[in-house]
């Protein structure tokens, strides 16, 4: 519950802070920066980055705390049909995360826009790409959370799962950015971090469209969840 609450809080707080600071400094920003400024992207940054991290940790803890406390044995004794147990976790966690993420995305967006009073540019939900960015980032967070949940079933260990998740989300992009451009661009656009960036209107070179990227992310999650189902069934409790 704490993690959920902090997801919402961080998303809103970053949105407010970034928007507020941008507005405050608007007059002093060089013209080229002002032109490149995207109000949609700015206000959703916090939701996207903070949310991805917190939602991932929540998804991991939902599973790994059972392994840590040994509750998994009580759960599997009460419900020996293991695919059902995993499906139940996916459904409950997925639904809660989707709702919270969407609420946070909308609230963060609206709050940020409200703070971007003139002369700073602001957007509304009917601005081109705005609604898609807000709805899409909520969906993104839900799927990324399920990806983390799947990782936790495979790794079974809180610290290990969180490390893996952080590596995939944050460290891998850094490594890839060190590659020469010809290699970097094709790989980078496949990374979850880039997919989320595109969703909130950030520009990534040679990137897929926002919904194409989202489908790619969904396929990663589907593969991990399939793997985790197999492992859950075949391994000892």
């Amino acid at each position, binding site marked *: 519950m704490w993690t959920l609450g902090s997801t919402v809080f961080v998303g809103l707080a970053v949105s407010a802070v970034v928007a507020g600071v941008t507005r405050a400094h608007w007059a002093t920003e060089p013209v080229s920066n002002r032109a490149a400024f995207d109000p949609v992207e700015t206000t959703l940054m916090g939701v996207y980055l903070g949310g991805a991290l917190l939602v991932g940790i929540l998804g991991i803890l939902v599973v790994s705390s059972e392994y840590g*406390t040994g*509750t*998994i*044995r*009580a759960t599997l*004794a*009460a419900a020996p*049909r293991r695919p059902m147990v995993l499906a139940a976790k996916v459904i409950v966690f997925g639904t809660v995360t989707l709702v919270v993420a969407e609420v946070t995305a909308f609230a963060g967006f609206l709050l940020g826009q409200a703070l971007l009073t003139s002369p700073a540019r602001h957007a509304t939900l009917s601005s081109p790409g705005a609604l898609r960015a807000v709805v899409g980032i909520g969906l993104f967070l839900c799927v990324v959370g399920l990806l983390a949940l799947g990782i936790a079933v495979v790794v079974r260990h809180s610290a290990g799962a969180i490390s893996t998740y952080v590596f995939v989300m944050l460290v891998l992009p850094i490594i890839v950015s060190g590659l020469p451009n010809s290699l970097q661009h094709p790989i980078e656009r496949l990374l979850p971090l880039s997919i989320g960036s595109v969703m909130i209107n950030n520009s990534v070179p040679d990137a897929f469209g926002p919904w194409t990227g989202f489908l790619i992310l969904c396929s990663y999650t589907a593969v991990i969840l399939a793997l985790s189902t197999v492992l859950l069934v075949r391994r000892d409790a």
Partner: protein
Amino acid sequence: MIEAQHLTKRYGDRTAVDDLSFTVRPGIVTGFLGPNGSGKSTTMRMIMGLDYPNAGRAIVNGHSYHDLRWPLREVGALLEAKAIHPGRPAWAHLMMLAETNGIPRGRVDEVIAMVGLESAASQRAGKFSLGMSQRLGIAAALLGDPSVLIFDEPVNGLDPDGIRWARLLLRRLASEGRTVFVSSHLMSEMALTADEVIIIGRGRFLAQQPVAEMTSRSTARFVRVRSPQLDLLRAALDSGGAQTALEDDGSLAVRGIDRAAIGDIAAREGLVLHELASEKASLEDVFMELTNKELEYSGSSGTEGNRQ
């Protein structure tokens, strides 16, 4: 009824359970004994479908655990008392289990009352002492009113009053026709609670017999003798072919001849007897005898060589 058929479990190159077969019948309390590391918990986990055997299978009431429609209503188990989410209150844990198996909510209150946890029911499970956790685990096992009960060290952490309560509970459950399978280290307690025992060592089957028969067959039976002229009596008995050993409390443990013969020898030599009692071997003695060669972990007690 529980049936183990050629259960085998290996972890890497260590064989934890080795071709183990036995049957646990309903209506009696069956004890499961073995030294530390002999594979008792592993066997119980295989019966519960938590770990998979490398060979063989475990059958409960005619089915493998995975095929049970409402597992908690057929098999109740206490395997690990602390395997509860620490943030959850006790009643919430039981409620969760009840709902997964279609057990009515009123039953949760019933089992809480049965184990005496009414005052602690709304506390978080993480704050429970070991004894309280054990009681909660027993409550969880009883939740579905199952016909098969499996307990791994249920009296661990209970005070003497609690131990007695558990013993009476187990005997009552067995008398209701249920199958009760209990593992324990406490030999003396097991002797009082169980009707039959299954002894394993290093994952292998060693013996299965009613407790009474087991203690009477052991070679550890002896006659306890006290006399003011113990040395003379001892010499006479030794020359008569008996094996004698001086006990810590000053009595003499005599093996190899019966009470009547000892009495006759004493009378013949004109020696006074203050005690002449047939000692049944304790379950501990039988157990030690059987498992001495099968100890997985053994320290040196430093007292070997004191017994002559």
